[in-house]
């Protein structure tokens, strides 16, 4: 053949706080690559991959990304936290690389730090918030509390929810912002129990969320008071909390139920290989890898500059159906989902209940100048 191979630089967490999610992302990207190679490659090219551990910190993330990119693996993909993605996006021109974001949600990535060579194939915070605004109107409960992680994402989530709920005539008498790394949620649970609300908006991350759910169950907050989760009913959290989240509604970024031909094919292949359904992180990472491959196909080149140019504004066939890569900020315009943790075939997992079309996605940030 003699065509230049597609060289993927897979940057994610093998250690550190995000190790578990990192593991999922790595698995799914590897799966996508193996699958592509088995089908004769992408655009007739072999796909090669090298991976590096970002240790969950931007510093290490930048270091391994730079190493991979300078070694020629300059189609980067995979970091979990926004901080690492921001650190990588910043340097793409210097390293002559392109970057595919599959898990980081910060608006900055498509706002003031947007880059011509960085593409987000998952939902941004702004997209989630837009959905929350819609969703809050349809919630039946009247009185809410907010429990959110005390940092940008948690605050944005909690405050937008409060505003949306109050706009649609509901009350939110109690908002609790919990420091990250909190182990013992009992002081907060006591206040939540005391407040007499009908439901609680929960925007917590990872381990904190798991600790909260477990302790809420212990103190009898669950199932008495309903939880509504922002990124709460993710597979790894459901698995970490026993049965506590069963029946909990919440936002979900991907589920195996999404009705598109590509997704069906993906789920079938995944099941054949791993004998289980893909998780949300796995779905999103696979999807990101596909966008990258589509870029190569469209550009007929593996040069990051060409791939980026080809993808900008492109119409893409994805796991989520036929979508646009918005030219203004390189954000993939995805539908968004609300689901509920349910037992299906003996497994507790998020199941989609309501789909919000890409039409509700807010306009691109004016801060983004590419």
């Amino acid at each position, binding site marked *: 053949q003699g065509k230049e191979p597609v060289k993927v630089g897979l940057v994610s967490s*093998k*250690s550190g706080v995000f190790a578990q999610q990192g593991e999922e992302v790595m698995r799914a990207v590897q799966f996508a690559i193996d699958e592509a190679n088995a089908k004769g490659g992408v655009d007739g090219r072999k796909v090669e991959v090298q991976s*590096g*551990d970002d240790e*969950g*910190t*931007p*510093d290490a993330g*930048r*270091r*391994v990304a*730079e*190493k991979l990119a*300078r*070694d020629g693996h300059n189609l980067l993909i995979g970091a979990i*936290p*926004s*901080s690492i993605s*921001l*650190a990588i996006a*910043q*340097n793409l021109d*210097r390293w002559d690389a392109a970057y595919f974001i599959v898990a980081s949600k*910060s608006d*900055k990535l498509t706002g*003031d*730090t947007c880059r011509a060579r960085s593409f987000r194939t998952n939902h941004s915070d702004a997209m989630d918030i837009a959905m929350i605004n819609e969703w809050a109107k349809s919630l039946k409960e009247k009185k809410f509390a907010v429990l959110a992680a*005390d*940092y*940008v*994402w948690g*605050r944005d989530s909690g405050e937008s929810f409060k505003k949306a709920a109050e706009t649609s005539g509901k009350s939110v008498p109690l908002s609790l912002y919990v*420091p*990250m790394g909190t182990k013992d949620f009992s002081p907060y649970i006591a206040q939540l129990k005391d407040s007499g609300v009908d439901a609680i908006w929960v925007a917590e991350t990872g381990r904190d969320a798991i600790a909260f759910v477990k302790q809420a169950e212990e103190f009898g907050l669950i199932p008495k008071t309903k939880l509504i989760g922002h990124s709460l009913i993710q597979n790894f959290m459901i698995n970490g909390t026993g049965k506590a989240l069963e029946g909990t509604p919440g936002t979900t970024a991907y589920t195996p139920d999404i009705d598109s031909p590509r997704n069906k094919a993906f789920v079938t292949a995944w099941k054949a290989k791993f004998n289980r359904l893909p998780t949300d992180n796995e779905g999103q990472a696979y999807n990101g890898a596909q966008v990258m491959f589509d870029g190569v196909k469209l550009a007929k080149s593996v040069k990051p500059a060409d791939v980026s140019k080809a993808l900008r504004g492109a119409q893409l066939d994805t796991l989520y159906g036929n979508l646009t890569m918005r030219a203004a900020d390189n954000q993939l315009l995805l539908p968004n989902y609300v689901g509920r943790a349910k037992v299906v075939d003996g497994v507790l997992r998020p199941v989609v209940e309501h789909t919000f079309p890409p039409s509700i996605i807010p306009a691109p940030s004016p801060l983004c100048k590419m």
Partner: protein
Amino acid sequence: MSTSSIARIFAFSGAALVAGLALTFGVSSGTVLSLLTQATIFAIFALGVGLLLRQNGMASFGHATYFGSAGYIIGILLQLKAVPAEAAIVLAVLGITGFAFLLGLVIVRVPGIAFGMLTLAVGQMFFLTANRSRGLTGGADGMNIEWPATLFGFPMSAIVQPGNMFMLSWAVLVVCMGGLALGLHGRFGAITEAVRDNEERARFIGIRTLLPRAALFALSAGITSVAGTLTALNTGFVSPESLHWSVSGVALMMVIVGGYKALWGPALGAIVYFLAKDVLGDYANHWMAIFGIALITVIVFSPTGLAGALGRLFKGKRQPRAVAAQATHHTAQATQAEPAKPSAPMARTAH
């Protein structure tokens, strides 16, 4: 101070600069150069941490504060477009040094390992604050540093070329180290050593012990902030992780592995750390465990670190008196309760 030792310091610095140049031109791989840059920046960081330990027997578990803050200060100043980038750099380094001096006036009074825990606590306060902040600094997500197109008259794109970036960092390292060697050779060095060895007696020969210790703390923080500045330049990004105590822990590890009795030990430790990690990274998922074991091994087999081991290799220096340390250590404790006696030398109780 003897002129011959000054000449030696200049000769060594000159040789180091030439070696750096040779590396820059000899190494063509951008990857290797960027790895070396990172290592050099951390060598400066470790130099700062090691300085405090060497000259004052104080182990800081919170120097990440000064490392990370440099990036934040520059980032904020640039984002606000308050001052030109050159001024922002100077302000960051001076500001951190000044702040550390004030903080030092308060915290260096706490003795021993408690000092280490205190620096840890102060550092975590900064980390948590940066983590939950919003707006300008971007909280947990971190912030970009909007460097202008030119810096000190050089185009930014040229500065960040791997070769140039390495040479810049290397030159800064050499200048810092040479400057310290000169400075410590003289009066300031003698004063801080005296305070380290025996604070009580130092007071009785007329040294006001608080100021030199605070000044040393500030100097050490200042050097660390220089490393932070270079990182800001190299990465163009800063986030709360750079303030986290584990970063301070890693720096301290470099210092110990390299050996803090020699000025260049910590720098050696940093470079070894990065090279080893790079080699390990390709082969193992278990770098944490491997590095942990390596750390323990070095500590057990060469208490003066790699620098000490190399020193012994070349000069046949004798081993430190391990038994003596033990005997005096316990005596020091036993006598502490005897109030009428002068307290044992700082260097001993400091542990």
